[in-house]
C-alpha cells in the first residue's frame, strides 16, 4: 500500500480499511517470452507443454549439451506442480516461494506483492500475456487470480521494461495457464477448514474438432475473517465466484489461435465508516468483472513468427460509503520475431491501449477529479539478441512509449550473458525503467464528509480536498545487475543475483495544503541487495530449496521538500532480510509431503516484528486419479501480522491492522 495514503487515516480506521482494500485491489499487454529458457531453470520438464519443450535450446552454439539456464536476468520459475503441492489457495501466497519477492496479506482477500522493496505498484503482472494490474493504483486484484490449471509462473526480479513496458520497474510476474490440450477430461476439487471455510471447482475439457480443444471451468471460495491484534475476528470475510474458458485452436498447420475469457463476482464484508466499532452493522464491498483475450500466432517456414493479441477487460468495484469505480480497457499488441543471419534474433512490436473509467462522487469519501477519464498509451519496442564468438550472448533493446500522462518515455536496456564452461553461467545488465503516474497519483481527492469532519480528520465538512497532483513526473529507475548460476554438482545448483537500483523522482507527499498534503516527486532513492537460491536433491525422492534475500533501501527527500515521513515509511515497509526453505518429499509413490518455512525481517514502519511461519501439506493418492491432502498454513502462531500500523504515536506497541490466522484444511482433487 502506498505509504502516503496510509499515514493520514489513523483516526478513521474503517476509512483506512476501505482505502487499504481499495489500494490493494487491481484490474492488457503481450509478451513474447524473451527468456524461453526460464522453464528449464527449475522443476520438472514434464510439466511443460509440447510447444514449450520444442522451444527449449538443447544444444549450445558449440553443439554441446546445455545444462544451465542461460537467461541474462534474475528469473525464477514456479511450476504448476509446485503450486499444487504447496497447497496454497492463492497465487499471491504461491509467490512467497520466490526469492526476493515479499508477499504481505493485509486482509482476508487483499495482498501486497513487492520485489526488491517499495510498495506493490512497481510490478508488471500478466495472465497469459494480458496485464492484470489496474491503471487506477497500479496494483492487482490478487483474489481474482486462481491457482487451478496453471502451467507455470515466471518471475523476473528487476526491470523488464524493454519487453514488458511501463510499470515493469521492480519486476515482472507472468502467469501462464495450461493449453486446453493439456487439460482434457474432468477435474473436481474441493475442501475446507477453519480459515479457508470452503472452496471448490469443476473443470471439464474436451477436444474441439480434429485439432482443437476447449476447457470450461467454474470455481468458488469462501474465506473466513482474519483476526484483530486482540484475537477477535476482523470484519473482512470474503466470498468469490469465477467462471471461464480457454480454447486452443489450430486454424492451419502453422497457426495457433487461443481464445479465453472469464467472469467473476466477489464480496467482502467490511465495517461501516459510520459505525466502525459495531461488528453487527456491516456492509459488503463488491468487485465484479470479466475479460476476453484472443491470441493468434503464425510461424513461417523460415522460423519467423508474427503474433497478434487483443483483449478487453472490464470491472466494477464498489465500497459502500467510500468508493465506486467502473473501468473498461482495450488492448492490442502486434509482434514479429525473426533471425537475421546466423547470429542475431530480432524481435520488435507495437501496441495500443485505451482505458476508460467512471468513478463515484460525494457523499463517497474517496473521489477522483476528473470523475471520468480515458488514458491512452501507444508503444513500440525492438530487441536484438546477438550471439558472440564463443559462449556469449548480447541483448540490446529499447521500448518507446507515448502516454497521455507524461508524454514520451524511452526505456533502453543492455544485457550480456556468458557461459564459463559447462557448469557456470554469468550475466550482467544495465537497464532503465519508468513507472508512469497512475490515476491515484494524479487525481485522487478526499471528500470531507460530516463524519470525517466530526472525527477530526479534515475540515470544513462538505469540501473536496485534492491529494493527487496532475503535474507528477514518472518515477525513474536505472538498474545495474549481475548474476551467477553454478551447477556445482549433479544434484546441487546455485543462483546468485546482485543489484544496485538508482531511483529518481519517487512519489512522496508535500505537507501543504493541509490536512492531506499533495503528492509530489519529492524523493530519490537507492536500493542495493541480492538473492541467493540453492537447489539440492540429495536423493531421488527428496528435493530441497533454500533462498536468502537481502535488501538495503535508502530513500531521501529532495532538498527543499517538506516531505519528512514518506522516506522513512518506504524504508521501514520492506524487510532487510528474508529467507525460505522448501522441501518436497516423495517417500512412496502414493504419498507426498511438502513444507515451506519462511522468515521475514521486521517492518518498523508497519509495526510488524520479524516473523517465521511454516506451511505443511501431506497428500495421499490411493488411486492415480484421486488425491486427498491435509494442509496447514502459518502453523507457528495463532495469528500474525504481515502489515498494519502502530495504533498511535503515544502507544506504539498497540497496533492496528489485520492478522493472518493459523489455517488448517483438507482438500481433494479427483479427475477422470
Amino acid at each position, binding site marked *: 500500500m502506498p505509504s502516503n495514503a496510509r499515514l493520514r487515516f489513523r483516526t478513521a480506521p474503517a476509512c483506512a480499511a476501505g482505502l487499504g482494500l481499495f489500494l490493494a485491489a487491481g484490474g492488457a499487454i503481450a509478451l513474447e517470452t524473451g527468456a524461453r529458457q526460464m522453464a*528449464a531453470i527449475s522443476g*520438472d*520438464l*514434464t510439466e*511443460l507443454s*509440447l*510447444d514449450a*519443450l*520444442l*522451444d*527449449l*535450446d*538443447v*544444444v*549450445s*552454439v558449440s553443439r554441446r*549439451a*546445455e*545444462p544451465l539456464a542461460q537467461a541474462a536476468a534474475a528469473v525464477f520459475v514456479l511450476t504448476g506442480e509446485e503450486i499444487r503441492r504447496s497447497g496454497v489457495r492463492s497465487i499471491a501466497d504461491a509467490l512467497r516461494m520466490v526469492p526476493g519477492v515479499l508477499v504481505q496479506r493485509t486482509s482476508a482477500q487483499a495482498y501486497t506483492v513487492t520485489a526488491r522493496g517499495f510498495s506493490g505498484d512497481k510490478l508488471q503482472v500478466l495472465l497469459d500475456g494480458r496485464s492484470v494490474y489496474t491503471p487506477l493504483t497500479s496494483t492487482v486484484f490478487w483474489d481474482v487470480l486462481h491457482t487451478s490449471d496453471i502451467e507455470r509462473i515466471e518471475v523476473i526480479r528487476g526491470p523488464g521494461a524493454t519487453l514488458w513496458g511501463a510499470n515493469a520497474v521492480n519486476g515482472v510476474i507472468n502467469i501462464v495457464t495450461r493449453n486446453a*490440450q493439456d487439460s482434457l*477430461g474432468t477435474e473436481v476439487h474441493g475442501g475446507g477448514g477453519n480459515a479457508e471455510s470452503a472452496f471448490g471447482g469443476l473443470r471439464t475439457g474436451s*477436444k474441439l474438432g*480434429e*485439432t482443437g*480443444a476447449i476447457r470450461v471451468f467454474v470455481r468458488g471460495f469462501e474465506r473466513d475473517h482474519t483476526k484483530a491484534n486482540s484475537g477477535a475476528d476482523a470484519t473482512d470475510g470474503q466470498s468469490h465466484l469465477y467462471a471461464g474458458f480457454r480454447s486452443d485452436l*489450430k486454424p492451419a*498447420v502453422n497457426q495457433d489461435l487461443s481464445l479465453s475469457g472469464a467472469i467473476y463476482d466477489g464480496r467482502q464484508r467490511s465495517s461501516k465508516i459510520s459505525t466502525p466499532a459495531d461488528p453487527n452493522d456491516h456492509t459488503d464491498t463488491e468487485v465484479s468483472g470479466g475479460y476476453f483475450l484472443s491470441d493468434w500466432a503464425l510461424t513461417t517456414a523460415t522460423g519467423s513468427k508474427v503474433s497478434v493479441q487483443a483483449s478487453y477487460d472490464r470491472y466494477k468495484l464498489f465500497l459502500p460509503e467510500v468508493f465506486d469505480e467502473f473501468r473498461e480497457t482495450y488492448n492490442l499488441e502486434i509482434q514479429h520475431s525473426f533471425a537475421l543471419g546466423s547470429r542475431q534474433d530480432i524481435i520488435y512490436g507495437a501496441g495500443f491501449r485505451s482505458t476508460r473509467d467512471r468513478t463515484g462522487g460525494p457523499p463517497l469519501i474517496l473521489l477522483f477529479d476528473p470523475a471520468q477519464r480515458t488514458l491512452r498509451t501507444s508503444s513500440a519496442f525492438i530487441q536484438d539478441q546477438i550471439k558472440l564468438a564463443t559462449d556469449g550472448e548480447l541483448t540490446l533493446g529499447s521500448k518507446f512509449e507515448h502516454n497521455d500522462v507524461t508524454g514520451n518515455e524511452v526505456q533502453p536496456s543492455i544485457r550480456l550473458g556468458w557461459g564459463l564452461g559447462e557448469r557456470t553461467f554469468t550475466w550482467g545488465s544495465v537497464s532503465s525503467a519508468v513507472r508512469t503516474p497512475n490515476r491515484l497519483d494524479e487525481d485522487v481527492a478526499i471528500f470531507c464528509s460530516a463524519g470525517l469532519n466530526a472525527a477530526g480528520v479534515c475540515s470544513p465538512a462538505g469540501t473536496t480536498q485534492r491529494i493527487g497532483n496532475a503535474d507528477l513526473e514518472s518515477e525513474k529507475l536505472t538498474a545495474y545487475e549481475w548474476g551467477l548460476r553454478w*551447477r*556445482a*554438482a*549433479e*544434484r*546441487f545448483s*546455485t543462483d*546468485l543475483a*546482485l543489484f*544496485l537500483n538508482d531511483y529518481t523522482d519517487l512519489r512522496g507527499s508535500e505537507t501543504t495544503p493541509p490536512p492531506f498534503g499533495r503528492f509530489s516527486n519529492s524523493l530519490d532513492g537507492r536500493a*542495493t*541487495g*541480492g538473492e*541467493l537460491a*540453492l537447489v539440492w536433491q*540429495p536423493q*531421488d*525422492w527428496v528435493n530441497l530449496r533454500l533462498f*536468502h534475500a*537481502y535488501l*538495503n533501501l535508502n530513500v531521501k527527500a529532495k532538498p527543499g521538500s517538506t516531505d519528512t515521513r514518506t522516506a522513512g515509511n518506504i524504508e521501514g515497509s520492506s524487510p532487510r532480510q528474508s529467507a525460505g526453505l522448501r522441501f518436497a518429499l*516423495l517417500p512412496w*509413490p502414493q504419498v*507426498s509431503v511438502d513444507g515451506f518455512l519462511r522468515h521475514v525481517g521486521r517492518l518498523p514502519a508497519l509495526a510488524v516484528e520479524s516473523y517465521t511461519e511454516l506451511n505443511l501439506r501431506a497428500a495421499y493418492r490411493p*488411486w*492415480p*486419479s484421486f488425491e486427498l491432502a491435509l494442509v496447514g498454513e502459518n502453523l507457528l502462531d495463532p495469528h500474525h501480522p504481515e502489515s498494519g500500523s502502530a495504533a498511535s504515536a503515544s502507544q506504539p506497541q498497540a497496533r492496528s491492522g489485520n492478522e493472518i490466522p493459523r489455517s488448517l484444511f483438507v482438500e481433494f482433487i479427483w479427475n*477422470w
Partner: protein
Amino acid sequence: MKQLTLRFSRSLLALLLALPMTAAAEEPDFQSQVKAAFLFNFAKFVNWPAAKFADALAPLEICVLESEPLSAVLEATLRGKSVDQHPLAVRRSARVEDLRSCHLFYTSVQDAVALNTSFAKLAGSAVMTVHESAQTLPGGVARFFIDGRKLRFEINGAAAERENLQLSARLQNVAVVVRQ
C-alpha cells in the same frame, strides 16, 4: 555496497564449504531430460488399442534395453507419474523380444541394421517405437532429431497405422509427419 558484497561472499563461501564433494559425478545432461519429458508426452498423446491394458489401472510401460544410457534419467523423470490413471513404469530387458507387451520402446542405438532387427521383433504388437538414428526407418514410429539448437521429432504415419496406434492431433501438429 561493500558490506553487502562482504555478506554475500561470506554466504557463498559457507555454501562452498558445505557442498558435498560429488562434483565429479556425471550430471544428467539437459538433452536427456528433455527427451524423457518428450517420451512422457508421447505416452500422454498416443491412444493404444484397449487390449494393451489389462484393466483401467494397469501400468503404462515405457521400455528400454538393459544398456540404454537414458534409462536412469527416464526413471527419475517418470517416477510417480501417471497418464489417464495408468501409472508409468520403466522396464528394462537385454532382449527386445521380451518387450512386446510394452507400450513405448525407446532406444538410442544408431546402427540402422540393429534398429531394423529390433523393430521387426516388436512389429505387430502395438508398441510405439522411438529412435534417434540419422534416417527415417519403416519400423520406427517416432524419431528425435536436432534442428539448430532445438530437439524436434518426426512421426512416421505409416508405421503408426501398421501398429494400430492413434496419435492425437496435438502430437501430429507439432511433429514433422512422414510416411514410410
